[in-house]
């Protein structure tokens, strides 16, 4: 396309009325032509002036929140997958993580590996799930497994699962997988509370490549009496909680 041809179509392009089949060619020309881009910018400013000349309307006050929510929902992608089915796979997601950790058995579960947890996450999320491997993993630790369904407090949207294995030595592990929280007030930290009221402040949830927030931490602490799992936002407000129950497969 020559500049002359491009210029001929630019007013319609700026006004949004150029037929779609011609837009693509024109945009390709614009990518490579600073002169026509400048002309486009000026025409767009004319359109903007037109928009600002309209009697300004007052949007409903609640629209701001709906815009924010719409954006987060859009950001979750996968529009073909209804939310209900995503919830149903929550437990599985945590299991996936653990199963992948099993696959990394060669790395070992020692304290020294804690710092590698994040890179393990990155790889783990990409692995194929196999829930049986979670049992194998739990058994391999020789400890007692628990799980907690994490439920958001009022005003927050998310869901998630925590799996805790209390084992001897440094083999106790906490694995958490939650959907991105809406609204987002991260970074989020993890707290466990046990029967005696003792609080374990653990690290932060990390963004995974799948878009979920995940957490994996090995510890030498005794997690056998943990009652609840709590997720706190950046201002230490509780955003999600879950009561600990015996682990059940899937």
């Amino acid at each position, binding site marked *: 396309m020559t500049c002359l041809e491009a210029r001929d179509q630019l007013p*319609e392009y700026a006004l*949004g009325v150029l037929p779609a089949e011609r837009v693509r060619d024109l945009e390709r020309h614009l990518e490579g032509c600073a002169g026509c881009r400048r002309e486009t910018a000026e025409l*767009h400013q*004319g359109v903007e002036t*037109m*928009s600002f000349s309209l009697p*300004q*309307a007052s*949007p409903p006050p609640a629209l701001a929140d709906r815009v924010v929510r719409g954006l987060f929902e859009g950001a979750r992608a996968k529009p073909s997958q209804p939310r209900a089915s995503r919830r149903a796979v929550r437990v599985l997601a945590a299991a996936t993580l653990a199963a992948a950790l099993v696959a990394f058995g060669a790395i070992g579960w020692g304290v020294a590996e804690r710092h590698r947890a994040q890179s393990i996450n990155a790889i783990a999320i990409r692995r194929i799930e196999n829930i049986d491997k979670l049992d194998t993993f739990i058994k391999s630790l020789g400890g007692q497994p628990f799980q907690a369904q994490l439920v958001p407090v009022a005003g927050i949207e998310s869901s998630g699962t925590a799996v805790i294995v209390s084992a001897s030595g440094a083999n106790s592990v906490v694995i958490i997988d939650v959907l991105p929280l809406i609204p987002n007030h991260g970074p989020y930290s993890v707290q466990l509370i046990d029967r005696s009221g003792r609080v374990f402040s653990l690290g932060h949830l990390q963004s995974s490549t799948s878009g979920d927030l995940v957490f994996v931490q090995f510890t030498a602490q005794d997690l056998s009496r943990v009652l609840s799992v709590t997720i706190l936002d950046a201002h230490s407000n509780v955003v999600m909680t879950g009561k600990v129950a015996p682990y059940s497969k899937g």
Partner: protein
Amino acid sequence: MTFGREGPLSAESEQELMRQLVAGEEHAIRTLYSRFGRPIYTVGLRMLGSVEAAEELTRDVFLAAWRKGGRFDSERGRLSTWLMAIAHNMAVDRLRHDRGAGRPPLVLVEEVPEPAPLDEEEVLLDRDRAQRALAGLSAAERHLLSQAYFSGWTAREIAESEGIPLGTVKTRLRAALIKLRKSEAEQSRMATRRGIER
């Protein structure tokens, strides 16, 4: 970096704001909304004619801004120009799509303005400048521009309905947009100068 809710942003701040939007940071979405939510909603309401359609358009414009945000380049133009172009384009698409369901309500530029609350000086100033820019167009330019802007007609459709050559329509549309842009830029420069003298 934090952003105020009023006053112009530097090109650098606009770029940073869009970077944060793309990263999904909520305060960036809210900042963007507090600055541009109203004019975007206005375009939706005036062009599509219902509160529901205006709300839907507003949500979709912000979603599109988030999706396309990586392509925003502050060196190529202002953020408001970019966003208002997205808003107007989407509204036109919807109009054209719904065309079968009857003609959209044609909103005349001359429409009597709604009284605006007193605390919205900024909005009034923008509108005042825009209206003065519009007053500088010839009747023919205004007429053709309205048909493209509000009704989403292509140059060919306008030429056919008006019985004037296609080339003339395109030339007038261009002349009208460039005039608006020049007048607005000139008034904005004068306003800045007055601001400095004060």
